[in-house]
C-alpha cells in the first residue's frame, strides 16, 4: 500500500492556506546536502520539483512535527493548522 492510498483512508479538514512554509528555498538548494524532509515525513508532504525546489503539499500533513525539528537548517516555518482544521482521527 503506497502513501497516497494510506492518506486516502484519512479524514482531513483542509484549510485554504498552508501551515507549512519553507523559509528560504535557496538553503534547500545550496546548503542542505541530505534533504531529510524528503524521506523523514510520514505523509510524504515534501517532494523535489524539477527545478530543484522543495514543494510542500500541506494538505496531507499528519501534524507530527518531525520536519519542524528534523530540518537541519530549521528552514521550515511550522505551525499547527488553525483550530478545527487538519487531520481528524476516526479511531486514533
Amino acid at each position: 500500500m503506497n502513501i497516497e492510498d494510506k492518506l486516502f483512508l484519512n479524514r482531513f479538514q483542509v484549510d485554504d492556506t498552508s501551515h507549512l512554509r519553507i523559509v528560504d528555498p535557496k538553503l534547500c538548494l545550496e546548503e542542505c546536502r541530505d534533504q531529510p524532509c524528503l524521506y523523514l515525513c510520514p505523509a510524504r508532504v515534501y517532494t523535489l520539483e524539477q527545478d530543484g525546489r522543495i514543494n510542500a503539499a500541506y494538505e496531507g500533513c499528519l501534524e507530527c512535527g518531525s520536519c519542524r525539528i528534523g530540518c537541519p537548517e530549521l528552514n521550515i516555518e511550522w505551525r499547527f493548522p488553525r483550530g478545527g482544521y487538519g487531520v481528524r482521527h476516526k479511531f486514533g
Partner: protein
Amino acid sequence: MTESCEVAIVGAGPAGISAACILADQGVETVVLERGEFPGSKNISGGVLYGHDLAGIIPDFARQDCPIERNIVESRVWYASDEGGFSLAYRDAIFKEERRLNVFTVGRARFDRWFARQAEKKGALVVCGTLATDLLRNKAGRLGGVRTDRELGDLKARVILLADGINSPLAAKTGFRPDPAPEHVALAVKEIIELPEEIISERFNVSDEDGVSIEILGSVTRGMNGVGALYTNKKSLSLVIGGNLRDFAELKLKPYELIEEFKAHPMVASLIKDGVPREYMAHWLPEGGYEHVPRLFGDGYLIAGDSGMLFNALHREGSNMAMVSGKLAAETILQALKKDDFSEESLSIYQEKLKESFVLKDLKKYRRFPGFLRKHREIFTDLPLSLSMAARDMLTVDGVDKKTKQSRSWKMIKSKTPLLRLARLLFNAWRSVK
C-alpha cells in the same frame, strides 16, 4: 473579546482532562482549550490504557460507558529477525476476573472524547477547535492567560496548565520548555486494520471481550532504536512501528515504507491477514527520559504529561503518567488557590508530589535506559539476526550432532557481536533497569 477563568488548560489529552476533572470537582472555574475539532481527534497511542490510574480520576469508569475495546489478558514480547523470531507470552486468569481492566485497549478518538465529557459533567468548560497560539504576560512578565486563534480571543487565567503534548510549537515560541532534540523523540506511525470480531478472538485465542498486546523488538525497525506493536481492539488491530527521529534521518528510512515492511513480516502478516486498513496516523513519543525532563513549573504555570517528557519507554507507559501528573498538577493548583499564591515557589510542591509518585520514581529508575539503547545498536541489527540463525540451526533436524551445532552457533554469534561486547551489553542492560 477577553474571557477569564481561574485555570486555563492547554490540551484536552489525558493530562489536561485529568486535571480538569479534579479542579471542576472542587468547583474551580476551569477552561480547557483543544485545537482538534473534538478531544482525541488529533491524538493516538498504541492503544493500551491502565485502569488503576483512570480510576484515580473516574472511579467507576467501567460503569460510565468508557469506550473500552478489549481487556488485555495476555502480553507478548517478540524478538524478531527478518524471517521469524522469538516469542515470549504471559497470560494470567487473574486479569480476566479479579484484576479485570488492569490494562485495556482504547481508540483515542473515542476515549479522549468520552473522558472530556466526564470533565464537562463535573462543570469544566472544554472549548474545541481552538488553538492556543501564545501565552499572555503582564508588564511584570508574569503569565496571565492564553491567546487563541478564535473569537474567544484572549483567555485570562490565574494559572495555566500546559498539557499540550510532546510536539509543542507553543513551547518553541514562548520557551516555557525547550523544544526536544531529534534524538529525544521517537516518530511512530500507526495503522488501524479492520477485521471481524470473531476472527480476532480466534486468532488471538481469546473471548470477545478480551485481548492481547504484542511488543516487537529486533530487526523490524531496520537498525533504528525503536519498537513495533500490535494490539487487539474489538473489531480492528492497532499496528504501530516507530524509531528514534535522529535514527530515521541517519538511516534515511521512510516511515510509510517501514510500516509496509512490518506488515509483511511473517509473524505479523498471518495475524493481520485479510484485514482492511482504515486509518493511517503519525505522532511523536517523548524519549528523552529522566535527564531531559524540563522544569515543570514556574511563575503562573505548570506542565503535565508528554509536554513534560513524562514517558516510560520501557513499559510504554505515557497515558497513565499524563493522568497522574495532571492530577498532581490540579492538586497543586487547589493548594495555590487556597493560598492565593501562584508564584514559582508556591507551585514548586508539584515537583515534590511528582517525586513521591511513581512518575518521577520510575523515570529516575530507568534514567540510563535511553542511553543504553543508543549505545547498543546491535540489539536492533546483528543480534536478532544471529540469535535467530542459531535457533534455526538448533531446531533443524539434519543429522548433525548438537555439540557441533552449538559451537558453530556460538562462533557465528561471536563473529557478529564479540564476547566482550555481549558481556557489556548484558551488564549495561541490567544496570539500565536495575
